[in-house]
């Protein structure tokens, strides 16, 4: 199966080029939604699929990135690039605090505390009016300009430009996460997830690796939020909407926790198909809930797990 990643990369490259051929604003918007969810789902995959921690704070990181960037740009006159980076760091710090405090107790506590943190963010965004402008949010974010060395400043306007920016960002993040998942860090995380005492006895410190995975995941998720709000041109408490979290969870659980390509495929599928079919938002989440229950009960490893098991069975039969 060595060819699979190469084929998948080729298919993705063609798919990524497609919006430019069609040139339709709706397709660009769909494309950038896919890019954002590819980053969010892969970030969650690093934490849940590899480190074995069910982080329900991903939506909080996303929103902190969004709010942080917007506040830095609007209230403090920063330009977008540094603001996104710093907001990402802010999300990382939040993630590390939540993880460090709760992992002292257990994985169980981490899941609970991360959810409570997400709920807290909704409340803070709504009630801390002097910082976040309250429920009305901050509308009319300026269209940002990116100054690249050696090129004229690039003013982003319209879905096409944001599609390009988010595509570049998503590819960079996915490459980074792919490297991390495939290198020693990723393997150590898997080892810790499978058998913590054994990994510890080999001299690995589970807490350090877990904190690293959460920090990295919070950083890329927060920066995705920072870029995304400029596409929306508004940031309001709905950036913390659990819709994002539930969609991420569906993508990771159905795609297969711990499988880079499985989660990426599920991210593309679940951000494109329901939108193209134009499901009503409420019913979509009801359906997602049912899919989540069914996936948890029927296929714990997700689609990637099913495929892996089938491949193993074939391999065994071929050698019988």
């Amino acid at each position, binding site marked *: 199966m060595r060819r699979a990643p190469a084929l998948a990369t080729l298919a993705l490259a063609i798919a990524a080029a497609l919006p430019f051929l069609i040139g339709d604003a709706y397709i660009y918007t769909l494309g950038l939604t896919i890019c954002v969810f590819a980053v969010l789902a892969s970030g969650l995959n690093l934490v*849940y699929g590899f480190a*074995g921690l*069910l982080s*329900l704070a991903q939506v909080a990181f996303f929103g902190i990135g969004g709010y942080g960037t917007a506040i830095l740009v609007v209230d403090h006159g920063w330009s977008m690039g540094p603001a996104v980076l710093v907001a990402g760091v802010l999300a990382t710090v939040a993630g590390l*605090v*939540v993880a460090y*405090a*709760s992992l*002292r*107790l*257990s*994985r*169980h*506590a981490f*899941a*609970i*505390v991360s*959810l*409570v*943190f997400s*709920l*807290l963010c909704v*409340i*803070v965004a709504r*009630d*801390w009016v002097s910082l976040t402008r309250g429920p009305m949010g901050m509308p009319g974010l300026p269209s940002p300009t990116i100054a690249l060395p050696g090129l004229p400043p690039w003013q982003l306007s319209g879905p096409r430009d944001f599609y390009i920016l988010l595509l570049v960002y998503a590819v960079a993040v996915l490459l980074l996460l792919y490297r991390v998942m495939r290198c020693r860090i990723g393997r150590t995380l898997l080892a810790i997830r499978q058998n913590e005492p054994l990994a510890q006895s080999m001299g690995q410190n589970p807490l350090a690796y877990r904190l690293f995975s959460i920090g990295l995941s919070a950083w890329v998720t927060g920066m995705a939020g920072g870029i995304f709000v400029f596409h929306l041109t508004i940031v309001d408490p709905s950036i913390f909407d*659990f819709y994002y979290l*539930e969609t991420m*969870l569906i993508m990771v*659980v159905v795609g297969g926790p711990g499988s880079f390509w499985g989660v990426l495929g599920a991210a593309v599928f679940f951000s494109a198909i329901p939108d193209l079919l134009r499901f*009503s938002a*409420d*019913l979509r*989440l*009801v359906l*997602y*809930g*049912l*899919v*989540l*229950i069914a996936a*948890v*009960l029927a296929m*714990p490893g997700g689609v990637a797990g099913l495929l892996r098991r089938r491949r193993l069975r074939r391999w065994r039969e071929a050698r019988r």
Partner: protein
Amino acid sequence: MNVDFVLQLLLNGLILGLIYALVAMGLSLIFGVLEIVNFAHGEFYMLAAMGCYFLTAGAGFGYWGAVVAVTAVSVCVGFVLYEVLLRRLGGRDFERSILLTLGLSMVLQNGALYLWTATPRMTTTQYTYESVVLGPVQAPLVRILAVVLAVISFVSLYLVLHHTRVGKAMRGVAQNRDAALMVGIDPRVVSRLAVAVGVGLSGVAGAALAPVYSVHPLMGFAFLFKAFAIVIIGGLGNVAGAAIAAVALGILESLASGFFSLVVVDGLAFVLMILVLLVRPHGLFGGGVRV
């Protein structure tokens, strides 16, 4: 500063705390016995409150009739929840249990939003416009009744846990699952009962609170935030700890709301939870935790 004002805040806080306790104790009980964190717990509370609204507004039930009916249905829902979903999880897979109950919560919450929209509804009963004067402070009768319901639930839960065979078995499983199996306790019977009691408690909470606050599909979600923080502060799986932490948090929040802005009040639960985790990770009251 006015003494009557502080007394009034204390009373409000006590009422709020007792309601928190109802939800948090159910959560803690289910976690203690099954090692499952029920993320759908808030939705059961919401559905109970909704049920109470429809029974009083649509079906002409009185206050007590609605409370009893909603509680009875909640207990049955708990049985069904265990038999249909939770039983299939089997053992140690904690993250799957969260995903499962989270999926359930999505279905219930968004289904309720779709059916009933997010409009808040007021439940009116025969007691809605009466209030009780206690010396310098006063409270609406429905709040006092909520306290009465909470206290009745605590006393019966205490009696069941400490003075019946099945209650002792529940505590046994919560303390040491393997040892409980060895002395012949059937985990399925005990777990089923724990879920039924837990969901039943959230049913009582929903029914007791429906006449006090407005009822809407997102109410459970907001409530769960406090309930989870309380469960951590009291110590995961420690039912009595959860009850004490709940009352304390209710009183603290109520006092804070008299003197600080809203965001401080809401952030209080989270800050306390993080502090407890940093200083006493096993909860304020220690023990009761198996990691």
